[in-house]
């Protein structure tokens, strides 16, 4: 047994988008144990329900995270609609699906750039973020905000996309998809990228399921679980098939996210083809009473919203379980036994969104 040293990783590190601290116990260059520490950006958002009414709280739920913000707002609306048994009109359901999938594409492109930057491939980082700018322009044209959409409300959506604009969006999506194919080819077929990712950070199928992994971490280990299969919003009418790989290593997780990019493009095209006409919202009458768990699929995995209400306009308890919080125990498992130079890449393959994890 060699001499053990403890090397601190984070909270400030060039590859980390957000602060997380890991104490790496190393023998020579191999990591034998990891002690994590989070809690640097804890904002205590769950306590704000005592001050803001349940209808206005959707703006705060949007701001739990900056990257996956629309789906947070949408899941909050799903939770309140579940408690009060509100039926959302079909056109609003389809619009929610379209905006969710755009949110997923921009999040995966952001992640692709950060991972490429983690092993020094800056040209790919700049290229994927340049493609992401086109997506953000489409989102700003349709909702008014680049990352915080502010488009969802309890009972429906707040604004409409006209049929002409949907056609423009589809035309732009065609160009963007061609550029994404080029970018993905470089990432998946380059031999230097493969040698850094293949065989690194193995998480077996049983470990992934038992430790509570969610999202692409679970699907890259062969477990076909995606919350969109349960059919919330308009997904039940869109023939959704989850993207699953069996390689259980970092390369598999990258392949899952890149294939999900193109699956989202297909979902957007199908949704625009099938979107019906109709009203955009249902009226909300009265106050919520009861409790409900709402689940949705964020780019990083499964998010769970729990609301408890007792008939007044302020909720009694509100709880968010974000996917990164559930992916931290598998991170501890894959870091043990890896080389020190692989630690930044492994931390980025779980797609950490620490501000989500700590709210």
């Amino acid at each position, binding site marked *: 047994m060699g001499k053990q040293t403890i090397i601190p990783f984070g909270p400030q590190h060039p590859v980390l988008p957000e602060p997380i601290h890991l104490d790496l116990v190393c023998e020579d260059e191999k990591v034998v144990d990891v002690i994590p520490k989070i809690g640097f950006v*804890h904002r205590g958002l769950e306590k704000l329900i005592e001050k803001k009414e349940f209808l206005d709280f959707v703006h705060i739920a949007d701001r739990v995270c900056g990257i996956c913000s629309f789906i947070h707002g949408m899941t909050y609306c799903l939770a309140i609609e579940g408690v009060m048994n509100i039926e959302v009109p079909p056109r609003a359901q389809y619009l929610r699906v379209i905006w969710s999938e755009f949110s997923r594409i921009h999040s995966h492109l952001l992640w692709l750039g950060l991972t490429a930057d983690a092993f020094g491939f800056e040209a790919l980082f700049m290229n994927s973020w340049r493609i992401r700018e086109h997506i953000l322009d489409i989102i700003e044209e349709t909702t008014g905000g680049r990352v915080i959409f502010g488009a969802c409300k309890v009972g429906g959506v707040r604004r409409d996309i006209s049929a002409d604009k949907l056609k423009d969006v589809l035309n732009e999506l065609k160009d963007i998809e061609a550029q994404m194919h080029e970018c993905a080819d470089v990432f998946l077929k380059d031999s230097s990228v493969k040698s850094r990712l293949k065989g690194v950070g193995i998480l077996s199928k049983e470990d992934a399921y*038992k430790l509570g992994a969610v999202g692409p971490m679970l699907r890259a280990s062969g477990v076909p679980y995606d919350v969109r299969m349960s059919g919330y919003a308009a997904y039940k009418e869109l023939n959704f098939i989850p993207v699953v790989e069996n390689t259980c290593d970092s390369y598999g997780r990258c392949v899952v996210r890149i294939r999900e990019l193109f699956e989202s493009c297909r979902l957007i095209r199908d949704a625009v083809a099938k979107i019906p006409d109709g009203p955009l919202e249902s009226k909300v009458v009265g106050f919520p009473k009861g409790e409900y768990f709402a689940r949705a699929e964020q780019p990083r995995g499964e998010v769970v919203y729990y609301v*408890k209400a007792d008939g007044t306009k302020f909720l009694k308890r509100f709880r968010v379980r974000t996917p990164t919080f*559930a992916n931290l125990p598998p991170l501890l498992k894959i870091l043990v036994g890896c080389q020190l130079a692989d630690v930044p890449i492994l931390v980025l393959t779980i797609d950490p969104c620490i501000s989500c994890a700590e709210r």
Partner: protein
Amino acid sequence: MGKQEIVEIKIDELVAKAKEFMAGNWRLVQICAAKLEQLELSYSFGKDHDLMTLRIILPSLDVEVPSITDIYFGAFGYENELHDLFGINIKGNAIDYKGNFYTMAVKTPFNTEAPRE
């Protein structure tokens, strides 16, 4: 959408029920607490699209809650959060931060009746 169910149990039954769920291939989804007139804990387990929640009513903060980290290792994060935000005592946590999981200016902010050092 799958079905959701909330079942009320006692503290002594928690570990046995967790072992049953593990044997039946259910995964741990989340653990949370709520301080209303009484303190309630909710342990949620999911399989496919169904969600089953175990509800425990805690009579007081002195009662110790057994940890389920030897069955579901992923529960250590949630149990540390329960200790930091509500002041609940968890016995046997695999990774115990002893109150330093979240750095906060005020201890146990969600439970104003907990003793604050």
